[in-house]
C-alpha cells in the first residue's frame, strides 16, 4: 500500500539521516542545515505519521479477520490524513536534503523492490573490486608515504596528464586547421613545377610503352646471345642445342640476316594490300635495269614494303652490324638459306606486329617509335592506299634510279629515297631501297622475309626470298616490278614475271633462279631502311 511504502521511504530517509547523523561526529552537519531541517520536529512528525499508517493497517487486519465490511469513509479519511502529513514532511525535507538525501518521486509496485539497491551508495561487488584494484595500483608506490604526500603526487600526475592531453588537442586542432585550410585551396597536391611534371610525364610514357608494347625492352640482335648462365627457371626449358629456330637462337638469326625489326613499324596490311593491288595493275616489268641473277635477288624489293617499315625502324648501328655479319656469312650457302628463312620470319613477324599496332592505333600519323632511329627521317603512315599512278611514277623513277644502284649504300639510298618518296607504296619504296643499296643476297632475303609477313596480300609469293623458302610473299612480285629491277636479283625476277602478266602466282619458279641471287643480298637490309623511311611519307602525300 502506498502508505506502507511511504512509511518505508520515511524510514529510509530517517535511517539515512541517522547514518549521516552518526557520521556527524566526524563530519558534522552544516549548522544551518541543521537548523533548517529541524531534525527533531521532522522526527516527531515522521513518527506520528508512521503510527497513523500502522493504525490503518491494523484496522484492515481486523476487518479481514472478522470479514466485516469496512467502513470506507473512515478509512479514506484516515488515508487522506496520512497523505497530508507525509506531504508536509517531504516538503520540509526537500529544502535541505538535496545534498544527502534522495527520495523517489513515484514509488509503485514496480520499482519498490529495486529502490533500495538503486538508492544505495555502495558499489556493486564487481565494481567495488575493480575500484579497489585500481586504487591499489595507484597508491602502491606511495603507501609508505603520508597521505598528504600521496595526495600531492597524485595531483602532480593528474597535472601532467592534463598537460599532455592539452598539447595533443592543440596539435590535432592545428592539423585540422591546416587540413581544412589547404583543402579548400586551389592546389590539393604538393605543387610540382612544370619541368618536373614534364619529366614525370615522359617517364610515364616510357614506362607505359615498355609495359604494353615492349618499347625499350628489345635487345638488339647482336646482343641476343645467352652469355651468362640461365636463371633457374629457364635452365631446363631452353635447350641450347636447338636449331636455328629455337627460342634463343631467334635473335641470332636476326643478327645474321634480318635487320632488327624490334622497333616495329606501323605497317598496315590494308595499305599493302591496296598497294599490291595497285602494283599489280601498274606492274610492268621495267626490265631496263640489268641485274645479275646471281646478285641481289628481287626478293630484296619484295621485302621492302614490309621491311621498309621495319628497316626504317632499325637503328643504324644495328644495320651496320647486320651488314658486317651478313658479309661474313655470304660464303656459306646453307647458312645463308637458313638465315634468309629466319630473316623472312623476322620480317614477317615485325610487319604483322606493326600491322597490329597500326590497327590498334587507328592509323595515326604520329611519329612511329623506332623510325626516329634512322637518320632522323620522317616517319610515315603506311596505311594509305596507293594509286596506280604512283606505281607508274615509280616505275619511271626506277629506271632513273637504276643508276643509283650499287653506289654507297646509305647516303645514296637516302637520296634516292627522297626521289622516291612520291611513291607511297611501301613496297615500291622497299624495292627501291633495296635496289639502291649494293645488291646483296641479304637484301633480297630480307625483302623476301618481309614480304611473307603480308600474308593477306594475295598472290604474292615469297619464293623469291632467300630462294629457299616459298613464303607467301604477297607483294613480292608487285614490288619487284615497281622497283624497276634496281637489284640484279630484282631484275631477274621481273623478267621472269613479265611472262606472267604481272601476276606472280608462280614465284616458286623464280625462287630457284633467285636463290643464287639472293644469297649475296644478305647484307643490304640496312641500306634499305632509310630509304624506305623516306619514301613512305612522301608517297603518302
Amino acid at each position, binding site marked *: 500500500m502506498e502508505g506502507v511504502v511511504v512509511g518505508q521511504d520515511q524510514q529510509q530517509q530517517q535511517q539515512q539521516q541517522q547514518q549521516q547523523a552518526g557520521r556527524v561526529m566526524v563530519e558534522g552537519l552544516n549548522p544551518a542545515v541543521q537548523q533548517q531541517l529541524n531534525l527533531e520536529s521532522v522526527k516527531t512528525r515522521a513518527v506520528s505519521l508512521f503510527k497513523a499508517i500502522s493504525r490503518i493497517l491494523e484496522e484492515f487486519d481486523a476487518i479481514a479477520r472478522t470479514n466485516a465490511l469496512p467502513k470506507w469513509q473512515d478509512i479514506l479519511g484516515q488515508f487522506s490524513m496520512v497523505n497530508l502529513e507525509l506531504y508536509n514532511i517531504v516538503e520540509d525535507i526537500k529544502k535541505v536534503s538535496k545534498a544527502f538525501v534522495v527520495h523517489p518521486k513515484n514509488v509503485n509496485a514496480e520499482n519498490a523492490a529495486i529502490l533500495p539497491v538503486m538508492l544505495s551508495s555502495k558499489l556493486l561487488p564487481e565494481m567495488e573490486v575493480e575500484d579497489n584494484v585500481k586504487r591499489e595500483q595507484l597508491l602502491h608506490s606511495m603507501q609508505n608515504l603520508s597521505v598528504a604526500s600521496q595526495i600531492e603526487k597524485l595531483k602532480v600526475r593528474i597535472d601532467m596528464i592534463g598537460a599532455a592531453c592539452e598539447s595533443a588537442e592543440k596539435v590535432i586542432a592545428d592539423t585540422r586547421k591546416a587540413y581544412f585550410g589547404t583543402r579548400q585551396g586551389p592546389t590539393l597536391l604538393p605543387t610540382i613545377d612544370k619541368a618536373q611534371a614534364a619529366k614525370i610525364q615522359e617517364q610515364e610514357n616510357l614506362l607505359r610503352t615498355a609495359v604494353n608494347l615492349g618499347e625499350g625492352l628489345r635487345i638488339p640482335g647482336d646482343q641476343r646471345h645467352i652469355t651468362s648462365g640461365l636463371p633457374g627457371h629457364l635452365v631446363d626449358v631452353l635447350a641450347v642445342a636447338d636449331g636455328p*629456330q629455337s627460342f634463343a637462337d631467334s635473335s641470332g638469326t636476326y643478327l645474321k640476316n634480318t635487320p632488327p625489326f624490334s622497333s616495329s613499324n606501323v605497317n598496315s596490311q590494308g595499305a599493302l594490300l591496296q598497294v599490291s593491288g595497285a602494283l599489280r595493275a601498274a606492274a610492268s616489268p621495267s626490265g631496263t635495269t640489268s641485274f645479275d641473277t646471281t646478285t641481289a635477288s628481287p626478293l630484296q624489293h619484295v621485302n621492302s614494303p614490309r621491311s621498309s617499315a621495319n628497316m626504317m625502324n632499325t637503328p643504324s648501328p644495328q644495320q651496320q652490324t647486320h651488314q658486317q655479319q651478313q658479309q661474313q656469312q655470304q660464303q656459306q650457302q646453307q647458312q645463308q638459306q637458313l638465315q634468309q628463312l629466319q630473316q623472312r620470319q623476322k620480317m614477317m613477324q615485325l610487319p604483322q606486329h606493326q600491322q597490329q599496332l597500326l590497327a590498334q592505333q587507328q592509323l595515326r600519323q604520329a611519329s612511329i617509335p623506332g623510325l626516329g632511329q634512322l637518320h632522323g627521317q620522317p616517319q610515315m603512315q603506311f596505311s594509305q592506299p596507293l594509286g596506280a599512278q604512283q606505281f607508274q611514277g615509280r616505275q619511271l623513277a626506277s629506271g632513273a634510279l637504276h643508276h643509283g644502284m650499287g653506289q654507297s649504300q646509305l647516303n645514296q639510298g637516302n637520296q634516292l629515297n627522297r626521289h622516291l618518296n612520291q611513291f607511297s607504296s611501301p613496297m615500291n619504296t622497299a624495292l627501291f631501297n633495296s635496289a639502291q643499296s649494293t645488291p646483296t643476297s641479304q637484301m633480297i632475303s630480307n625483302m623476301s622475309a618481309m614480304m611473307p609477313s603480308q600474308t593477306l596480300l594475295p598472290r604474292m609469293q615469297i619464293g623469291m626470298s632467300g630462294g629457299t623458302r616459298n613464303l607467301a610473299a604477297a607483294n613480292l612480285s608487285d614490288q619487284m616490278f615497281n622497283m624497276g629491277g634496281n637489284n640484279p636479283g630484282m631484275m631477274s625476277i621481273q623478267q621472269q614475271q613479265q611472262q606472267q602478266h604481272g601476276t606472280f602466282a608462280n614465284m616458286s619458279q623464280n625462287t630457284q633462279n633467285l636463290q643464287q641471287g639472293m644469297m649475296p643480298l644478305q647484307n643490304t637490309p640496312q641500306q634499305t631502311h632509310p630509304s624506305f623511311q623516306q619514301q613512305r611519307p612522301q608517297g603518302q602525300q
Partner: protein
Amino acid sequence: MECVVQGIIETQHVEALEILLQGLCGVHKQSLRIHELCLKSVPNLGLVASGIRLLCDLEQPQPTWTVRHVGGPMRGAGAERISVLMRPMVESKVSKNALRLLLGYKLDHEQLRVGFAFHFRRGTQITVTVSSINKILKLHATDEAVPVTPGIQLVEVTAPASSENYAEVVASVSSFCEYIALAWQDGVMAVPQ
C-alpha cells in the same frame, strides 16, 4: 576480357601506397616477381600476327608458368562511355615446356616485374598490382635486370570480366580507383610535409 586501369606512382611513395591498399582491401599483399616473355608469331603462322606472353612466377618455390594472350582495347561507342580500358584477355596455366612447344613464336622482348599485389573482392574480383618494370639487358639474365624507369612504378587495377557483366565490373573498378585516389589525396594531405 579484363578491365584494366594503369597508373603510375613515384617509387618513394610505394610504401605509403602499400599501407593504404592494405587498409582499403583488407588482405595482405602478395609479393610479385614475374619474368614475362613476350613472343611474337613467326610468319606464315596465320593470317595475322599475334603475340602472346609467357609469365613465369618466380616467387613460388617452384616456378609456375602462365600463358596469356592480350588483345586490343575494346573500341566503339560502348568503350567511349566507360572510363576504363576493356580488352580481351585469355590466360591459362601451362607447364614449363610451353616455351619449347610454342614453335611458331619467337621472343620479341622480355621484362621482369617486381612488386606486390592485392587480390580481393569489392563487387567483383579485383587485383591491384604495384610493380617496377625491369628490363633485362642480357638475354634471360633476370638477375641483372634494371628498372626501365627507376623513379616510377606501375600501378595496375585489373578485374576479369565477360561481355555480359562488364558493365558491373567497370563500375566497381572505376569506383575503387576513385576511392584509392581520394584516400591517397587525404593521406598525402594529412601527413605534415
